[in-house]
């Protein structure tokens, strides 16, 4: 439990860490989505390509957009970009830094999906089985053109009766899966090398600018959070004063209208404060009715001056 709490606090304390956490969660969600998604190739001549490529590219777009939506810093960056300059100049380097860091984090989940798809192979087999050259495979070489398209389209569906007598479909599957996995591993290798180089070579170029941009982007983020917290705190105090003022004005109204001999001087002990001079069912009802029908104005300046 302690470990979990420590991890939780670590992630919360640093907004970059929070974003890395979200990024990691999205990547895991992407893998989970792929494994729970029931891939079902239509095995029809023109539908295969659309389905296969669709499954390979549409979810990454969705994951990319999700990565942008869930990242709080994208809103902060947009606000900083669109705000009027006012008395504070805008630094484009900071905005560029924020933009690139947001994009990098948002790209992780789509890339994970594409790589998992390629390494699994089902998408590519479905998409490109119809585009295979039938002459390369013994079982399809002597079949008529129209029928070969049909047969090739049915290769991803292993339970087809038409293919039971034809073992070349396994050859097509293996061939396509081999290409798919090779492509997957190559993309992974290229990306990792690119990330490695970018991280290693970055200190060689513009280190000062980078440090400044990172500092000020962090600052803008923190300033935004603190402003929101201060607003919350302020509205709480405002509401407190407003309600107290309302109860006091009710108390005054009651004193004006009732002829009780109970003087103002004795009113300040013990439970009397809490009761605010409201000691009767009708008075309470009147207070509640007034609260609904005539909410007090949003102005606590009088209460403040008292």
């Amino acid at each position: 439990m302690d470990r979990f709490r420590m991890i939780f606090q670590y992630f919360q304390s640093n907004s970059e860490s929070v974003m890395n956490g979200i990024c990691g969660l999205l990547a895991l969600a992407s893998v989970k989505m792929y494994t729970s998604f029931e891939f079902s190739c239509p095995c029809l001549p023109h539908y295969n390509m659309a389905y296969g490529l669709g499954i390979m590219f549409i979810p990454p777009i969705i994951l990319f957009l999700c990565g942008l939506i869930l990242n709080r810093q994208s809103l902060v960056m947009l606000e900083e970009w669109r705000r009027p300059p006012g008395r504070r100049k805008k630094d484009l380097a900071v905005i560029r830094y924020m933009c690139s860091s947001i994009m990098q984090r948002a790209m992780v989940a789509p890339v994970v999906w594409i790589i998992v798809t390629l390494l699994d192979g089902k998408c590519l087999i479905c998409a490109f089985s119809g585009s295979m050259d039938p002459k390369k495979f013994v079982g399809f070489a002597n079949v008529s053109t129209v029928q070969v398209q049909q047969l090739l389209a049915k290769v991803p569906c292993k339970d087809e009766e038409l293919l039971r007598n034809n073992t070349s479909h396994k050859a097509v599957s293996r061939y396509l899966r081999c290409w798919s996995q090779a492509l997957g591993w190559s993309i992974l290798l290229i990306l990792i090398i690119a990330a490695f180089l970018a991280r290693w070579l970055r200190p060689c170029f513009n280190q000062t600018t980078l440090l400044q941009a990172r500092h000020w982007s962090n600052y803008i983020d923190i300033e935004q959070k603190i402003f929101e917290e201060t607003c919350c705190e302020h509205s709480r105090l405002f509401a407190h004063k407003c309600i107290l003022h309302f109860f006091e004005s009710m108390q005054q109204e009651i004193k004006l209208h009732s002829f009780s001999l109970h003087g103002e001087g004795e009113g300040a002990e013990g439970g009397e404060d809490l009761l605010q001079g409201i000691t009767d069912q009708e008075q309470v009802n009147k207070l509640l009715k007034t609260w609904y029908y005539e909410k007090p104005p949003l102005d606590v300046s009088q209460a403040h001056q008292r």
Partner: protein
Amino acid sequence: MDKFRMIFQFFQSNQESFMNGICGIMALASTQLYSAFDFNCPCLPHYNLAYGLGILLVPPFILFLLGFVLNNNISMLAEEWRRPQGQRGKDPAVLRYMFCSMAQRAMIAPAVWLSVTLLDGKCITCAFCTWVPVGTLGNASHPHLSQGEIQRLLARIPCKEIYDGQELIANEVAVRYLRCISQALGWCFVLLMTTLAFLVRSLRPCFSQAAFLKSRYWSHYIDIERKLFDETCAEHARSFAKVCIQQFFEGMSTDLVAARCHLPRKAPADAGEAAEKLLGITDQGTMNMALKSWHRCKPPLHLHPPALPTGNGWAGEGQPPTHPSAPRKETAAYYSWV
């Protein structure tokens, strides 16, 4: 348990996070509901469409309404909308902001249900199995079958055990076709929703940031004010009840003294607090009468001014209460049981 408590506390501390938490729980509940639901296509020509579309569209509507019901702010919005103007003007921008933020959160669980249903494929397969293009996918030249017969055969596609139209169109081919269409629809729907969400979120800072900050502040303010008012009323009710009950016991004790016509036994000085708390009721019979009186004749909701400050029990000091009839009524009722 500690882990859950920490997560719970995190969500509660921030109102918006709490709403997001409920939203996330409903989305998870929606997927769980779908996987627990035993989908059973009727496999009859006209019932399939009704059943399939019903399962596709009715639960999202229910989840949408549930999203509003579970949101505490709905009553706040209704109150703010319907209250009379009084001394405080109403800002329609604030009302719009509150409604939009509630509607957005309420739409997530239905959208999850629709996506999961479409990506799974069973609903669309059930609903549209009679619309499969037999000409392109199957053997359209199969003779001696009327339109009604073909419909009946196609309607059984989702039920593999009773499907008898293998010569017309292979079951796997039809199911794969329908599922492919369903999944394509599902992914397109998810893409559309995500794009909309992205546009809504990213276009707002570009156009109406100042108005947005104002609406957000005042909607939080209304929420906090309502909660603080409820807390203040609860505290007031507590004090009111305390004083009311104290006065009831004091009233009892005074009447007892008057009824017995003997000098009150003054508690010895060193019995202290315990004697005070007994409020003059020191035997079983008296206590039983006090309890009966509490049940049969509750005191009026009116506190006598002089007895308010402290609870030292004797209401005998000179004080004309504003409603002198009330204590007399109490005494009369009490006497009737003597």
